């Protein structure tokens, strides 16, 4: 029987199902990354303020990162059951290391003169963090965010083992019924989703950091 890798017929027939899984995949990715950021930010700030805790924080997130996703889901499944929660916890755990590390690197890279100047102006520690240090650390944070988002998109698919893998669900079902179009379509959509989210972050970052644009054009002018 004819078994093409790409077929419009498949999309016409199962478009709704594909769309449904794409939505699950996207929402799961966004939710995981947002939760991971919400946890990583305080962790990184604590690691920076209290150097004694930096080792343990990086160590624990490093272990979470090294444990394979399949094993992590397997460790969680007996307790959190099968479904969305388990996948979500696994994804958040996995994204933490990249984010924490990049935020710390970003905070460490802030020009000490700038911090001194702000302190001299009488900024409180919180205000210093929010209005001086974090904005200056943004490029590194954004780099971490991009990496975390792209790997999370890919990682969602492993959720099939607990029955909630977004597009991975379609890949797996396609494999079981030897339906090539289903596998290829969901794989391509995964890649496309990673690309689109990555691009969205880049655009958002450019909007949030107008000064990096100005600096770049400034450099270009200086060069000519």
């Amino acid at each position, binding site marked *: 029987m004819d078994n093409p890798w790409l077929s419009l017929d498949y999309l016409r027939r199962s478009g709704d199902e594909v769309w449904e899984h794409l939505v699950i995949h996207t929402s799961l990715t966004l939710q995981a990354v947002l939760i991971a950021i919400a946890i990583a930010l305080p962790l990184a700030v604590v690691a920076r303020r209290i150097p004694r805790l930096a080792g343990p924080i990086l160590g624990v997130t490093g*272990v979470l990162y*090294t*444990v*394979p*996703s*399949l*094993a*992590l*889901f*397997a*460790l969680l*499944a*007996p*307790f959190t059951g099968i479904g969305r929660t388990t996948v979500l916890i696994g994804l958040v755990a996995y994204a933490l290391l990249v984010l924490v590390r990049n935020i710390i690197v970003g905070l460490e890279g802030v020009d000490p003169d700038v911090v001194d100047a702000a302190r001299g102006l009488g900024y409180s520690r919180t205000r210093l963090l929010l209005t001086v240090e974090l904005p200056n650390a943004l490029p590194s944070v954004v780099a971490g965010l991009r*990496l975390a988002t*792209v*790997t999370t*998109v*890919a*990682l*969602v*698919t*492993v959720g*099939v*083992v*607990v029955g909630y*893998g977004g597009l*991975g669900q379609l*890949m*797996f079902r*396609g*494999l079981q019924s*030897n339906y*090539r179009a289903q*596998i*290829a379509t*969901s*794989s391509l959509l*995964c*890649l496309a989703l*990673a*690309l689109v989210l*990555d691009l969205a972050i880049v655009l958002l970052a450019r909007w949030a950091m107008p000064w990096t644009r100005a600096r770049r054009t400034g450099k270009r002018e200086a060069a000519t």
Partner: protein
Amino acid sequence: MSTISDAWDYLTTAENWTGANGLFGTNFDGSLRFQSDSILALTLEHLYMSVAAVAIAAALALPLGLWLGHIRRGGGATTVVSNVSRAMPTLALLTLFAASSIGFGNRAVIIAAAIFAFPPILTNAYTGMADVDKDVREAAFGQGMTRRQVALRVELPLAVPLIAAGLRTSTTQTVATVPLAALVAGGGLGVIINSGLATQRYGQVLAGGILVATLCLGIDWLLARLQRRVTPAPLRERATAAA
């Protein structure tokens, strides 16, 4: 909690380690077969698949990365390769291969794992060679060394820490990828998790998770020590910064 005691029972039953029929058997075509009811055999299979994948990847990526790094070209291309590979889900590649003419089983897994092991080795070999101080290179040429000598005797030794870091990253990642083999009828420790989930024996699932996690952390720890050993003390800081 019964799940935890089930996992404990699973891990402390001797037969689960040695298997009911020994570690090895033969397939219908006479080839070696790792018995899937033995933790030891599955671990060996897991390691064999990982080593095979990393060896294939290293055989291709190391020469290419070293050469590109030496001529200092193609840096953009290596970055693109590693970015695309990050966005590509392992499961997608596995299912694509399994549904193609490569077929189900360990071969599809080894090829897929090798593809994912390729980028870290390539980028680190490239960066290691290309980041060697220009002055050092010039000095070597000035002494009358040939291109080959500069590459092998000057750049390569200085690049070793980064190359080692790349091999470590890639190996750890491969050992962590291979468990997915169970989803496409391959072997390795993932089989324990997968069959546990399929039969709703969550104790076994937990035990499998512990085994896979322990193996990965153990391998990573071992390689970290190895990496430290091959890195001369003055270069250590640089290597950790890049890894």
